């Protein structure tokens, strides 16, 4: 990977964080009238996608999908416009934050139903396989999703058919307010389960952009070379509430030492520790520019027109042939 690419990944990390922070600030004005599940704290997993994937590689995700969408380099404007539920959003306001799509850029959907996009990604992988397309499908989901039966069924199918699918579990230790320990046996590893199911599996730190870049890139190579699925379990942490724009640590469902540990391991902080001064100033400049870009997108979004009511009654069935 060359210097430029690395820099692009670092920028992407900031891009995701800054967009999410901007959303969290603007959300409180009640202009984005749909539930949002922000990725703040978990960006290092998605940041490398823009560089590591082509447009033809496919990503699907769940409710917490903003990072994956931005990370893959999808259309930022149309995304923000959609959060504002405006006519110019990618789905003209029908979708909102919980149903992201960008066909052109290979983002094939996210879903608010826990785990239910996992088999979709597997089907896309199957399509690629039998139609001899060698792109990879990435399927993102949380630790909570690994408790749904469809997760196991999907892994099994991908394993039997040797699909080019990369399963990525973002283990942030919580499903809404519920800690893993109430939902899964102590000390059990998700990556061990997938291994027992016949899927090559690794477990890694998801907050260090160097590690995520390396493991993702290795996994993609492995998949392409061996035509086999892989699962990566990344440990990470979400910094704001499960759904919505605010911190919710006053609710005390996560203990202080846990919070401290992860705050120290903020992916942005980790990044700033290892980059040199030149990069720092490049990133600084990037931030300024991107901030302006964001401001203008959000301003534009606010001013844009809403779709007409009648749009609600379009595209129920595809009657083209």
């Amino acid at each position, binding site marked *: 990977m060359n210097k430029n690419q690395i820099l692009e990944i670092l920028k992407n990390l900031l891009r995701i964080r800054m967009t999410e922070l901007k959303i969290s600030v603007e959300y409180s004005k*009640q202009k*984005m*009238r*749909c*539930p*949002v599940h922000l990725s703040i704290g978990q960006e290092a997993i998605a940041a490398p996608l823009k560089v590591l994937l082509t447009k033809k590689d496919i990503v699907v995700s769940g409710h917490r999908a903003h990072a994956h969408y931005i990370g893959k380099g999808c259309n930022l404007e149309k995304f923000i416009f959609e959060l504002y*539920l*405006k006519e110019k*959003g990618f789905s*003209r*306001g*029908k*979708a*909102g*934050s*919980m*149903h992201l799509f960008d066909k052109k850029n290979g983002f094939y959907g996210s*879903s*608010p*139903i*826990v*785990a239910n996009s996992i088999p979709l990604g597997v089907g896309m992988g199957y399509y690629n396989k039998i139609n001899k397309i060698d792109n990879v499908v990435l399927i993102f989901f949380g630790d*909570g*999703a690994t*408790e*749904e*039966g469809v997760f196991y069924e999907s892994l099994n199918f991908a394993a039997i058919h040797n699909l080019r699918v990369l399963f990525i579990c973002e283990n942030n230790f919580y*499903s*809404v*307010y*519920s800690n893993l320990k*109430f*939902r*899964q046996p102590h000390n059990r590893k998700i990556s061990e389960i997938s291994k027992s199911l016949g899927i090559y599996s690794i477990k890694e730190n998801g907050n260090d952009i160097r590690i995520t870049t390396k493991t993702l890139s290795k996994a993609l190579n492995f998949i392409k070379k061996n035509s086999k699925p892989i699962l990566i379990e990344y440990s990470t942490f979400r910094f704001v509430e499960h*759904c*919505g724009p605010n911190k*919710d640590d006053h*609710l*005390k*469902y996560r203990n202080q030492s846990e919070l401290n540990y992860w705050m120290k391991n903020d992916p942005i902080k980790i990044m700033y520790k290892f980059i040199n001064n030149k990069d720092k100033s490049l990133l600084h400049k990037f931030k300024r520019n991107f901030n302006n870009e964001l401001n203008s997108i959000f301003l534009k979004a606010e001013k844009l027109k*809403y*779709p*007409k*009511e009648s*749009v*609600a*009654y379009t595209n*129920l069935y595809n009657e083209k042939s």
Partner: protein
Amino acid sequence: MRKVKFHQAINMALEYSLKRDKSMILYGLGVSDPKEIFETTINLQKKFGSQRVFDTPNSENALTGMGIGYGMMGGRVVMTHQRLDFSLLSLDQLINNAAKLFYTSDGKFSVPITIRLIVGRGWGQGPNHSQALQSLFAHIPGLKVVSPSNPNNAYHLLISSIFDNNPTIFIEHRWLHNQEGRIDKIYKPKKIKSFEKISTGRDLTIVCNSLMTIESIKANKILKKNKIKCDIINLLSINPLNLNVVIKSVKKTGKLIVCDIDHGHISISSEIISSVASYRKNIFKKKPIKISMPNYPTPTGPSLTKNFYPNFINIIKSSEKILNRNIKIPKNKLEEIKLHDIPFKNYTGPF
């Protein structure tokens, strides 16, 4: 008795039942988390322990089956889904097991479980957080399907459902949680009531349930001001369905409006109209009207949902049509629906 909110009524019913039957368990995603299912399960884990009141893994299907097995042992069960949409993962258990085990075992095994399904609306809930598929559940013989519309009937209906020995789908509309009202004390669980008469009149019959009952009551106020007197029938149970009162009413009024929180195609509202039509060929003096969600997935944005979810305005408009006269709607009432995507003024999302 003092006034309580709907979510408190649910909470009180759960507490009463947990006290009354030591075998009862209460579980579902979020039951013991800081939000406590929109405050409906507040303090219950503290009071009854984490074995009887507990949060679960994300495994709707197995956990439904788990509850059925628990019920077969003679224990009572309440399971909660924060959105009805999530329960679609568990339909094998509900339809293939819960609905049939009493029948197939010829009465040896009962399934005394209650499944609370919370229906979302507004604020960008969109296609997967706002489905109100009451008709889907009520199509299945062996399931009971009930829904409350205010704190008092919520309290009683939930207790009746819990102590009913059959699998009961308790459809609880999110937008009712903030309703306020008095509740009558309970001394002993009663059988599930099939309906409540809300008002009496000779001009028009309105049949409704859940949130649409609130909308019917709003409409009724306006209709009354316009000197129109309605029979309003709030259906507490849609399976089993007892339509005697509806038929009696339509015999009197000849005019029927049915209001449905769910899609209208193949729905409880179609069933009601069909049943009345099949009773006698001619008790309709005017053609009946169905008010329901459109046969579309719910769009997310507020400009799209504007007239998507039915409300009292639809009832007034339909009344105008069926009665063939103009009805004046006070301006302040029209103001009310401007913020059509939130349940009450200070609501700030997201769920």
